[in-house]
């Protein structure tokens, strides 16, 4: 949960700082946003920084509210999942999806465009996007290393199918880094100061090394790919042989772009009717073929015929869809997931990872783009936990005999 808030805060703070310190004209994608709005560079930057500051303040307030109700929050997993059933199920699902992807890659005509390829396998990728957080949640509930490793194997099988690098980043963060940080804090709290025993120090160092190693590998992979993905930013740098600067420019655009997109959503929402929350839910549940908000915003930026989705943040979602002040929605939206987490924990179901992921993903794409998947994932975890609860009395009675 804290990890979800942390990532959300990190992305808006970094985005706001970068957005306020760059010249939009030097960044092709950002330039397109400002051009589509008909705004000059300074005007575009000012609107974007406002969106970033409000988003940052809203998430900080949401974090403070969550902190203030910490006594009511669940401290640990309250129920076990039936791992004897869930693990084979997860592994078999991963094998089936992997096989389906392999068959599709061999049989279907190869797409030359990455975007076309994603569209071609859209259904499969959607199922993967729905499934991997469930496996991550089950891994967090695993009682031992062996079971956790089993879930991890199923998880990476799904990560290999999805083309989105953010998925790998999220899995590394929520599956390894955040649990490692929690273990570090726990170890430090248990044996602090001079009383820290040797084994505690070694354990602490091993966990820290593991977390740093995973972060470094995942970060290096993403940095390498970003460096290799040439963009028009290349134009300004390669002739001078400044590859490193080129990477820095790409990263700057990557970090700042969501805030510009939120500003774009706000400005567009002032004058035009954009897809409603109901449209978004229907689109996510495949009940309609109409565009959702982020798809429409993308098309407005890049022109007709283009396929993609923007990341309009909680801020852009609020500005485009509601009459609320965006700040109110930026505070309220993540708290919906906190509330769901607390209520479910009281029912004996731990969905901390799912809620944390939803807060982070929602902070990029908006609440309603994440909500349907969150509800389905929670339902599946709840069903699995109910199965355990149903099986427990039978086991107890067997022991009784």
């Amino acid at each position, binding site marked *: 949960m804290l990890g979800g808030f942390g990532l959300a805060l990190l992305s808006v703070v970094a985005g706001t700082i970068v957005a306020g310190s760059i010249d939009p004209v030097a960044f*092709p*994608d950002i*330039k397109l946003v400002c*051009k589509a709005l008909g705004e000059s560079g300074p005007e575009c930057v000012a609107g974007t920084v406002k969106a970033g500051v409000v988003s940052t303040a809203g998430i900080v307030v949401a974090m403070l509210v969550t902190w203030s109700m910490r006594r009511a929050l669940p401290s640990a997993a309250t129920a076990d999942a039936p791992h*004897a059933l869930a*693990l*084979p199920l997860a*592994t*078999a699902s*991963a*094998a089936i999806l*992997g*096989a389906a*992807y*392999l068959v599709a*890659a*061999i049989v279907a005509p*190869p797409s*030359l*465009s*990455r975007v076309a*390829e994603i569209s071609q396998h859209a259904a499969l990728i959607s199922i993967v996007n729905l499934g991997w957080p469930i496996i991550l949640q089950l891994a967090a509930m695993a009682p031992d*290393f*062996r079971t956790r*490793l*089993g879930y*991890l*194997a*199923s998880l*990476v*099988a799904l*990560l*290999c199918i999805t083309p989105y690098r953010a998925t*790998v980043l999220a899995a590394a963060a929520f599956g390894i880094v955040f649990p490692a940080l929690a273990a570090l804090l726990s170890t430090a709290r248990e044996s602090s100061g001079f009383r820290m025993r040797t084994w505690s120090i070694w354990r602490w160092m091993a966990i820290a090394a593991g977390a740093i190693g995973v972060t470094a*590998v995942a970060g290096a*992979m993403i940095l390498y*790919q970003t460096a*290799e*993905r*040439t*963009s*028009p930013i*290349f*134009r300004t740098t*390669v*002739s001078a042989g400044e590859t490193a600067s080129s990477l820095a420019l790409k990263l700057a655009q990557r970090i700042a772009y969501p805030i510009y997109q939120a500003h774009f959503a706000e400005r567009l929402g002032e004058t035009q009717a954009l897809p409603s929350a109901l449209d978004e839910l229907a689109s996510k549940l495949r009940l309609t073929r109409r565009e959702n908000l982020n798809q429409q915003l993308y098309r407005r930026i*890049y*022109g007709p015929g*283009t396929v993609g989705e923007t990341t309009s943040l909680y801020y852009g979602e609020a500005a485009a869809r509601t009459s609320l002040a965006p700040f109110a929605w930026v505070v309220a939206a993540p708290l919906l997931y906190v509330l769901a987490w607390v209520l479910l924990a009281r029912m004996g179901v731990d969905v901390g990872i799912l809620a944390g992921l939803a807060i982070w993903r929602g902070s990029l794409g908006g609440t309603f783009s994440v909500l349907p998947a969150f509800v389905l994932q929670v339902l599946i975890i709840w069903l699995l936990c109910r199965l355990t609860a149903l099986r427990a009395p039978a086991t107890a009675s067997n022991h009784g005999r």
Partner: protein
Amino acid sequence: MGRIVVAGLFAVLFVIQAASLVPAYERSRMRIAEVVYRAPDPLLASALDAMEMRAILERVMRAHNVRRADTPANISVSVDALTVEFGLFDGDVRGIAADFGQQVGAASLNKLSSGVYAVLCGSAAQRLSFGGCTCSPANAPGGPATSNSASLPESARFGIARLSESRLPWLRPVDVLAMLIYVAAIFVWRRGDRQHATGSVASRQAGVE
């Protein structure tokens, strides 16, 4: 028994992952083709200067292990004392095009305006079947010069992105990581099966005592 099934499922995952590397490799080759087909967009060229164009095309050639001697039609262009030969690039286009059963005219490099290049289709007004790239008469070799557009269109942006992506290794780190985890999982679960059996016997004995 359940543990054997789970270990078997990990083995299945390993096999699937290994098999998926074959189409991934093929796909990486095809992406190079896409780059070539998208590159003819003169608007793409307008976003690049000569040095960039050369650097990118050389990357493609290296990635595709192209040898200069194979060229069917060497093309040399000299602008601002910078000479670039793209003959094998052309040959590569033809080779890949044949794989897809596509017919394309000879690619050529044309100077559109000072310091700005475009790779163009040989025949005028030919529409390529990839990405809706059109070679209009105005852009054909020898045709009238096209002004360098200040704005950057989506087609150009997209073309460059695909071009660079062809350089990405087809064997992704996540593939390697996955296969290592599968092996570890198979090992741990198989070993766990034995330990579980031993543990069960010990528990039963303890219970009897």
